[in-house]
């Protein structure tokens, strides 16, 4: 065990974070025996837990920033989630992050300092400037173009159907086509 050092996630405030739910959850009595009631209570509890804890994602700046960076040891994990025992890279990066926050640097300054030291791969997502912006725009551009294309296609096919009906209003043709399809299947 001596060869494997623990790398705990460090709380910048120095205090051990302890997040607790509202008191009424802790004071819950055992559920009633009915399966239906039990299920309903479980659902209510789930909703209550979700809603009582409130905000999404990391609640402080340190946590937010360490989720925007990657561990550089090659594990391909988010810095804040790298839990490899003995990973020297994440220890060093987290120390750098704490130092940046303590020095009063802005988020951008901190992220820039990481890029300068480790390269752009240290960012968990492409930046929103330069060529990297293409990464963010392309999906929405393609989606919008495909959506427009689909709408136009649906309209065209609908119009085509109407025109065909105007031109060939012959129920016998439809019946024949249906018969041919059935027989060739």
């Amino acid at each position, binding site marked *: *065990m001596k060869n*494997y050092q623990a*790398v*705990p*996630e460090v*709380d910048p405030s120095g205090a*051990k974070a*302890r*997040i*607790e739910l509202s008191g009424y*959850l*802790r004071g*819950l009595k055992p559920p009633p025996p009915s399966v239906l009631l039990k299920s309903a209570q*479980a*659902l209510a509890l*789930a909703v209550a*837990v*979700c*809603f*009582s*804890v*409130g*905000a*999404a*994602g990391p609640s402080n700046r340190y946590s937010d920033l360490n989720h*925007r960076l*990657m561990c550089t040891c*090659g*594990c*391909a*994990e*988010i810095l804040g*989630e*790298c*839990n*490899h*025992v003995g990973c020297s890279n994440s220890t060093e990066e987290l120390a750098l992050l704490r130092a940046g926050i303590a020095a009063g640097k802005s988020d951008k300054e901190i992220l820039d300092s990481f890029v300068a030291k480790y*390269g*752009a*791969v240290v960012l*968990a*997502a*492409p930046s929103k400037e330069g*060529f*990297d912006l*293409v*990464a*963010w725009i392309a999906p*929405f551009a*393609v*989606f919008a173009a*495909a959506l427009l294309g*689909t709408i136009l296609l*649906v*309209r065209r*096919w609908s119009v*085509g*159907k109407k025109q065909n009906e105007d031109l060939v209003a012959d129920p016998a043709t439809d019946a024949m086509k249906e018969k041919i399809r059935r027989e*060739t*299947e």
Partner: protein
Amino acid sequence: MAAFGSFALLIALALAAYNLLAGAVALRLIATGQQAAISPERLADTARRAGIAGFFAVTAAAIALVWSVFANDFSLTYIMEHSNRALPAAYKFSALWSGQEGSLLLWAWLLGTYGFVLRLTHKTDVKLYAYAGVILAAIQLFFLAVLCFAAPPFALYQGATPADGNGLNPLLQYPEMVIHPPMLYLGYVGFSVPFAFALGALMMRYPGEKWIRITRVWTLVTWLFLSCGIILGMHWAYAVLGWGGYWGWDPVEIASLMPWLTATAFLHSVMMQEKKGMMKSWNVWLIFTTFLLTMLGTLLTRAGLVSSVHAFAQSSIGTWFVAFMGVVLAVCIFTYILQRDHLKSEQQLESLVSRESSFLFNNLVLLAACFVILWGALFPILSEYVVGNKVTVGAPFYNNVAVPIGLFLLFLTGVGPLLPWRATSLKAIKRNFVLPVIALWVTVAVCLVVGVRPWKDGALDEGNLYALVAFAISAAVLTAIGSEFLRGTLVIAKQSGRNLVWAKYMLIRRNTRRYGGYIVHIAIVIMFMGFAGAAFNRNVETEMALNDKMSIGPYTLECVGPTEDSNANYDSWFARLDVYEGGVKRFQMTPERRVYLANGQPQTMVAIHSVPGWDLYVVYEGENPDNGHPIIKAYLNPLVSWIWAGFALLFLGTLIALVPSLKPMAQKGGQP
């Protein structure tokens, strides 16, 4: 055994080559009506039999490798690198797919198995099956060539035979890992079959849409296997990687998701072809794309193009895969151009608001999601090529780009079943949508009242926004599908005079495909609600000496003993934690960290207590080097179990969809 295995692979290679060449010649002779010394039909049958024999040859090779693992034959490089003497027997099977060579052998064996079943059932449609068999032989030829010349599993270790092996990757030493990779591979490999049928049907200008019905079961079963593989992988990541999540947008994960998305699109759009004779070209290309994506996924993760947290087996077989994909794409394009007039569809819609339109939009969203994921996977390569700067595209990118698309898909999951085929009236739209819309807004109101608001401290809170939207749409979709079930059930109950349970059973049995599909939709909604729960994940980390306590949610954890243990395979360190709820001791958890002796690699064994509302997830992070106290990280992850429950429902729904519906005669008799 090494010589036997190598020899079996060479025989399989020769048989696949014969199957391809003889089969292709026979089909050509049949198509052109040319005379030959041997009857084309008999030649085609010899090709088919060669394919069956090939299956036995690949099976022999696979058995030889497994035998070598159990025999601790460390004269084989593969066995030396992926097994050791102390490895438990169950995990010795895992060694078959823990490395590059073994994975490819498993792939070839599964492909051989699919081909074996296909060739045995050839009388369903002899000519179509002959085409499909030849195409499968071509794919098999590629994999066997890679196994024989680029990644041989029976390569001998250079130098003196080691006394023991390096052992299995610790990440793979987990019960689910015995079943997750085979499931995933069954999914990947299985798409070769619908691909072969689609390409074969196009080559022979198969009349009508019967080939789609023939391949439907293959496609659905394969889709189910892939779904199982993905979910098992998620559960494994959750239970083993120890970071509190189940999906990290890792390249291996997205490689499995891409073909799943296109296959899902195919399963929907193929109904347009069956019912309306539409989208023939689109469907063919969806299947082609799905097959190519299974290859691309392998290329992305195995050829080292992108790094992955659990790409266990990387090597330099990328060139082989690129060449193969190029050939496959060229064949697909060539065949399509040659036969495209055969795919002329009756592209007509009677209304903008119809089931047909919803399928089109459903395909659009699924394909857009696939593009986003592929784009994210390839952008680092593109960036390096264009500006010489390699970047990372990780979870924050996908959460911002893919989640909104996913929510749109969730919305369509509910809208589609409400729209009738062909056309609908405004009155019908009002009738079908009024309840779901009410459910949606009631959910939004309830969420806002209890504190789930899409803003925090005057700024947009994306996590809360996505969760709010997901819960609201889920409520609407569940109401929509539930009302569909109820409406049909009431009609049958009224007609038959039987109770609602019987009526619901009959409703499903009369149209298993439709209602099985609805159940799958409900399952997807439940899974999305589980995903939305991640917005409220919480964690706390602390160092725990004896009798120290930590609190999270309704639980208080007390350390009652940091402990060590050892066996022949690994040393382990774990903490025994008594868990109190409401001041009463409820249960004990033992998060563990192991270090495997064969390779010195550490491994987390997470302790999870799961209830419908949340998971208490506890990780043994390590020990403080100064005082030896264990460092424990506890997570409270809401609604995670809904994901697994949703998958169970998805499995059930797919099985129902596979069961044939009751025939009209049986319906009259009222018998199931």
